[in-house]
């Protein structure tokens, strides 16, 4: 019994000694050596650009970017705020671009009388812009036909 305890103690001391140098080194997470307790700097607040001219497209099939603010514009089954300006009935009054005929084609390729449900939630494809710098450099060039 006594011999066992002494042996155990010895092994334990050996293990502790082995772990010592590792513990002295600073803890490192995958994000590098960062003081996790210090908290991070809050990101810059992004503000939507308020009206601008239509933004040039980079390729033909691109959903055009939204050149105006969309804050508070609600899209639900009762009403679509975007269509209050972009529908065929309203675009002239609102001086907006009318939605193209592609938006009246259903999932199965059938032409519909009103906006297809697949296109109803505009912001799935069309996004507003903010005034921030891009996070990574981008060297994308539009096709020659659009330049």
């Amino acid at each position, binding site marked *: 019994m006594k011999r066992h305890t002494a042996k155990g103690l010895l092994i334990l001391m050996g293990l502790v000694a082995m772990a010592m140098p590792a513990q002295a080194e600073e803890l490192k997470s995958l994000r590098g050596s960062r003081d996790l307790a210090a908290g991070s700097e809050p990101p810059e607040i992004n503000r939507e650009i308020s009206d601008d001219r239509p933004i040039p497209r980079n390729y033909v099939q691109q959903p055009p970017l939204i050149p105006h603010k969309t804050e508070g514009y*609600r899209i639900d*089954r009762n*009403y*679509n705020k975007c269509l209050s300006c972009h*529908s065929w*009935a*309203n675009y002239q009054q609102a001086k907006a671009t009318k939605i193209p005929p592609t938006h009246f084609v259903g999932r199965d390729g059938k032409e519909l009388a*009103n906006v297809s*449900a697949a296109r109803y939630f505009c912001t799935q494809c069309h996004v507003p812009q903010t005034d921030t710098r891009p996070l990574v450099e981008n060297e994308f060039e539009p096709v020659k036909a659009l330049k």
Partner: protein
Amino acid sequence: MLESTNKKRFKWGPYLFGGVAGMVLLAAFLGELHYSATEKFCISCHEMEANVYMEYKETAHYMNKSGVRAICTDCHLSQHLVQKVGRKVKAVNEVFQHFKGTINSREKFIEKRLHLAEKVWAEMKANDSRECRSCHSAKSMDYTKQSKRAMEQHIKGDDEKKTCIECHKGIAHKLPDMQTIDPSAVIGI
């Protein structure tokens, strides 16, 4: 002789009582006018608190960069005494409908919503959006400081004698099913 027996002592009692009672009533009336024009009163009904109030809290009239808030009565109650009292008389029906339970669930409220909204739109159109204008005066609006879309539409709206509510529906609450108002802006099939 006759004269002196007829000459009864002038009785102050009833007049004094009437005067005091009148003052109390007037104070109560003004107090009521005042209390019932607070946000607390408007949302003391569950119908208002659970529906329109919750939605309004997400809009610019509840919180914005300038910190100026428009409360229920700013948009729904005239500042002029006569119209104010007129609206209160109509509100008696609303209290009655509350106890009848006309819109005591979300479902019932949504069913009645178009009807309720149409009443508000009609009223605002008829009075040239008077309550909006008590804060937003077209005369003191600098269109050139507004966004391009706002500026163009406001100039056009002035020319066509349009009123605020014709273009600004749903600014403080969610809208009802708009199928009958603008079929081009609701979900098709």
